[in-house]
């Protein structure tokens, strides 16, 4: 087949991607490790051309329109990148043996060894009715012409073939190809097994939760009534929970995993889950489920835009769309409609991305309201949640029935409601693009996080067993300060639960009492205790350490919000005597009921530390008085002081008495300082971002990095070209796509010698920069560079600061709260 198309070519570290100018007629992602040979074609004049021969003997001719210099630079870059990818080539043969398309083309009757549970337990549906053989035949033709698995080129016919439903045995492979999971599986060879091995026998909250659901994931499918099927599902879900322990396991993943495992091998399913969670539906299954909530808001937004009448009706009768739609999205419609139809939706979802979820959902509403006059106006007459759900349930259960049973035309009578849904959805809502979904996700994400956070906050405060006489407002401030300190302290913290470590406690205490405020710049910390810039230990801070140990009632080495509230409560709502006793106990390090000389001196240091910022001179005198009196009153025999003597010594000094009577308690202030507030909403946002420490925030940074084009998977170009700011785009000309039977083996080194030698410098900086930063991730999509992560987070925080200020004045979003 010969065809020539204009389009954009993108070269990255590991991939060469092309998308035609009309975004439809052709696109491909070619991993460089599948390239066998690159040749320069001397076509003279203005056109510069390269001929690329890939593993499957398909020849692509790239004609690059541009200066000679550009072309030379391109050639150099592709040569360098090819060299770096050579190491992957050795894995190709064994990898391809796991691809059904290989077997299909070589010998269609041969059984393949790896694949989904369907190979053993049968695929759902009637093969004849599904016209599986006919569809397979069409696919064989397509794959022969346009390449297969890693080297497949998508032409418009591809999406038609997907739309009519994929044949059973090929389904899994096309899913992983469309989602990009196949590339991850290739470069992470062996990781799935390694995760299993490294974590064998380990248990976690996630594994417990997974166990609960194993027997109830598509239980009607025969494989899941057997040990073999259950074990398969268990391995995939637990491996994923170890790969992303922060996400772990979310109900609905079991539904999705059990469904895709019918068509995919464990490893395929594992990497597909990975693409789902990281890129296609980020945040759906995270602990806060912010992604799912976010997409509900976006869906509502679309309904409001596209069907204002219906939207208004829902508002009037106070029906929330999410009560019905959230499960649709979370389980990708698998649980909502009959399984066979759900797989058809999945076919489209993997091909076109998350927008399909929206399109199908909108279409369901459209069909069931008067707007299309097909299914009546039932949605427009509902008056409560119950009727709403009822109408939709009825619709789903009749999807296999004719949409137009009374039409005279036999052909039209044969159209089922599902056919109609699929046909109209993509036409009617074609303007819902991946770009617009991504854009809306960006617009709304921080509000969602904020809402989730304020919900979490209310929940946590509500669940406090003891509020220690603090007012609601005080508790709220303590909560904010607690998590605020956690947020800033996170990088240095060794804990990954929501408990507060000592370093963070310094920061926290500093935010509520001026004497504990730590001047960060003059301090370095060694072994957990602050030192000044000369490396001297700051003795005063030992007092805070003592307080920390005292607050830590469970002796876990970390403080919960409850610990902090109880601890502070005892100080603030105690009395003169209780506070004197507290100080005594804090300094009585061996808890023997006596202070010895060393301990008395430490006590005086604590006083000096707490008083250090006071402007009066009284405190110096008082502390020296204290020392003098203390030694006077110590038991001359053992040189020790009991609590009653300590009380006497304190009460003998007016300054100290005042401190214990009120000064110490009132040194804790629970106000949001006004300058802090105006300086930035930063604080509030950080608070908002906190959920169980700062897991959510971290997660978010990660997600956002994923959403950027530096996403480690070469997503199909049409899904990603919204953000190509510093990509190496160039206009090129794919002249021919031809399957040649030229079997001449030529290894890559040969071809590199055909590359031009002269290095010209200009106009190609973008290639270099991209190479170094962006595509680095191709190689190791799982181990995230932490530096980059932090950068991502900080950038987002910057962005968020500007966004939030708008939000404060404008409308606040109140979803479900």
């Amino acid at each position: 087949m010969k065809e020539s198309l204009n389009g954009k070519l993108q070269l990255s570290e590991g991939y060469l991607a092309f998308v035609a100018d009309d975004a439809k007629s052709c696109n491909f992602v070619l991993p460089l490790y599948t390239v066998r040979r690159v040749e320069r074609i001397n076509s003279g004049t203005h056109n510069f051309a390269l001929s690329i021969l890939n593993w499957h003997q398909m020849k692509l001719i790239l004609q690059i329109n541009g200066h000679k210099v550009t072309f030379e630079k391109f050639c150099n870059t592709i040569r360098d990148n090819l060299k770096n990818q050579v190491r992957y080539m050795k894995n190709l043969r064994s990898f391809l043996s796991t691809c059904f398309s290989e077997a299909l083309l070589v010998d269609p009757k041969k059984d393949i060894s790896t694949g989904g549970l369907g190979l053993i337990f049968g695929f759902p549906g009637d093969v004849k009715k599904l016209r599986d053989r006919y569809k397979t035949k069409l696919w064989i033709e397509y794959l022969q012409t346009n390449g297969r698995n890693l080297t497949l080129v998508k032409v418009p016919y591809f999406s038609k073939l997907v739309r009519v439903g994929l044949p059973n045995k090929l389904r899994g492979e096309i899913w992983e190809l469309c989602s990009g999971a196949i590339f991850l599986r290739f470069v992470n060879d062996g990781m799935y097994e390694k995760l299993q091995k490294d974590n064998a026998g380990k248990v976690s909250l996630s594994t417990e939760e997974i166990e609960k659901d194993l027997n109830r994931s598509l239980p009607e499918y025969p494989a899941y009534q057997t040990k073999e099927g259950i074990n398969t599902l268990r391995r995939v879900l637990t491996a994923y929970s170890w790969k992303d322990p922060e996400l772990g396991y979310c109900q609905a993943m079991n539904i999705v995993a059990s469904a895709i495992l019918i068509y995919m091998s464990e490893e395929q399913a594992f990497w597909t889950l990975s693409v789902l969670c990281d890129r296609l539906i980020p945040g759906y299954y995270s602990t806060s489920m912010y992604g799912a909530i976010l997409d509900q808001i976006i869906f509502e937004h679309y309904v409001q835009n596209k069907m204002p009448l219906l939207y208004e009706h829902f508002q009037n009768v106070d029906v929330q769309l999410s009560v019905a739609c959230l499960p649709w999205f979370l389980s990708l419609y698998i649980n909502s409609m009959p399984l066979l139809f759900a797989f058809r939706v999945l076919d489209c979802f993997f091909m076109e991305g998350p927008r399909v979820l929206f399109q199908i959902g909108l279409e369901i509403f459209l069909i069931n309201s008067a707007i299309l006059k097909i299914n009546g106006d039932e949605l427009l007459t509902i008056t409560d949640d119950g009727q709403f759900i009822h109408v939709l349930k009825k619709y789903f259960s009749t999807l296999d029935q004719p949409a137009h049973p009374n039409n005279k035309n036999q052909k039209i009578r044969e159209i089922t409601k599902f056919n109609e849904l699929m046909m109209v959805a993509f036409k009617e809502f074609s303007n819902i693009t991946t770009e617009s979904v991504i854009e809306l996700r960006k617009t709304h994400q921080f509000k969602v996080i904020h809402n989730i956070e304020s919900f979490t906050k209310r929940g946590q405060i509500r669940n406090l067993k003891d509020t220690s006489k603090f007012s609601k407002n005080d508790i709220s401030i303590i909560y904010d300060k607690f998590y605020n300190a956690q947020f800033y302290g996170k990088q240095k913290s060794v804990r990954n639960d929501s408990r507060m470590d000592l370093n963070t406690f310094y920061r926290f205490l500093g935010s509520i009492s001026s004497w504990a405020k730590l001047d960060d710049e003059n301090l370095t910390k060694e072994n957990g205790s602050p030192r000044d810039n000369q490396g001297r230990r700051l003795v005063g801070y030992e007092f805070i350490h003592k307080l920390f140990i005292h607050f830590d009632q469970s002796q876990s080495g970390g403080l919960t919000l409850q610990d902090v509230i109880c601890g502070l409560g005892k100080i603030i709502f105690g009395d003169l005597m209780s506070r004197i006793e507290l100080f005594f106990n804090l300094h009585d390090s061996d808890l023997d009921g006596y202070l010895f000389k060393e301990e008395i001196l430490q006590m005086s240091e604590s006083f000096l530390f707490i008083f250090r910022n006071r402007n009066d001179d009284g405190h110096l005198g008082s502390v020296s008085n204290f020392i003098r009196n203390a030694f006077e009153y110590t038991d001359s025999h053992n040189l020790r002081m009991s609590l009653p003597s300590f009380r006497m010594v304190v009460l003998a000094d007016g300054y100290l008495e005042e401190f214990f009577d009120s000064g110490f308690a009132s040194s804790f202030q629970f106000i949001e300082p006004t300058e802090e507030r105006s300086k930035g909403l930063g604080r509030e946002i950080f608070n908002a971002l906190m959920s169980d420490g700062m897991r959510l925030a971290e997660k978010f940074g990660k997600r956002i990095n994923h959403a950027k084009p530096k996403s480690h998977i070469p997503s199909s170009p049409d899904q990603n070209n919204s953000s190509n700011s510093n990509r190496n785009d160039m206009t090129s000309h794919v002249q021919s796509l031809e399957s040649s039977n030229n079997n001449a083996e030529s290894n890559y080194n040969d071809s590199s010698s055909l590359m031009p030698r002269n290095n010209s410098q200009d106009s190609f900086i973008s290639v270099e920069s991209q190479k170094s930063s962006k595509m680095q991730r191709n190689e190791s999509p799982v181990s995230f560079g932490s530096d980059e992560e932090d950068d991502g987070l900080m950038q987002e925080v910057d962005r968020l600061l500007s966004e939030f200020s708008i939000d404060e004045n404008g409308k606040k979003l109140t979803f479900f709260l």
Partner: protein
Amino acid sequence: MSNTSRQSTLSSESPARAGGEGTNQQPNLKPVQVKLVLLGEAAVGKSSLVLRFVNNEFQENKEPTIGAAFLTQKCRLEDKVIKFEIWDTAGQERFHSLAPMYYRNAQAAVVVYDVTKAASLDKAKSWVKELQRQANPNIVIALAGNKIDLVQPIEESEDESTESGRQVPTEEAKAYANEFGLLFFETSAKKGDGVRDVFTEIGMNDLIKI
């Protein structure tokens, strides 16, 4: 828990059908709607309780509820017809933030725990706390300890400690329920024990309030 309502029993108004309109023999009786929400830890048997009540059946491997499921059941209670509209919610902790969507207008809630899992009662308590602060102030809350079929003593015995596997003593949960003004039941969705009582009492309580 009062015994006054003991005598009244629910009778299904129609052959049990989720969402079914049913044939009402007394068409002049307008059903009283009761919005009810089920809450509780994952896999304690929330969906199974509803399924037992609505369809009088039990499924061994019930799929976990994603988001929430909605079912209805019409019942006769004395001279009234009650239409229960039941929101059966997902139990996994991370679905927690979605719960307000379902309980926001509820007149009744059944908070379910598993008598063989002590931790599930703690979770139930935190749900009760949340409901009492956040939900409709008149909400009727029932606490239901499910799965008693797993702990029924092999021989009739007065002594509860002979029950194997039980982690939440009836008395403890009952005392808690009394303290917080909850209706209290122990149920077995599998065998059907106590399930109907939960809804009868809730119905009675709601009728009084309405």
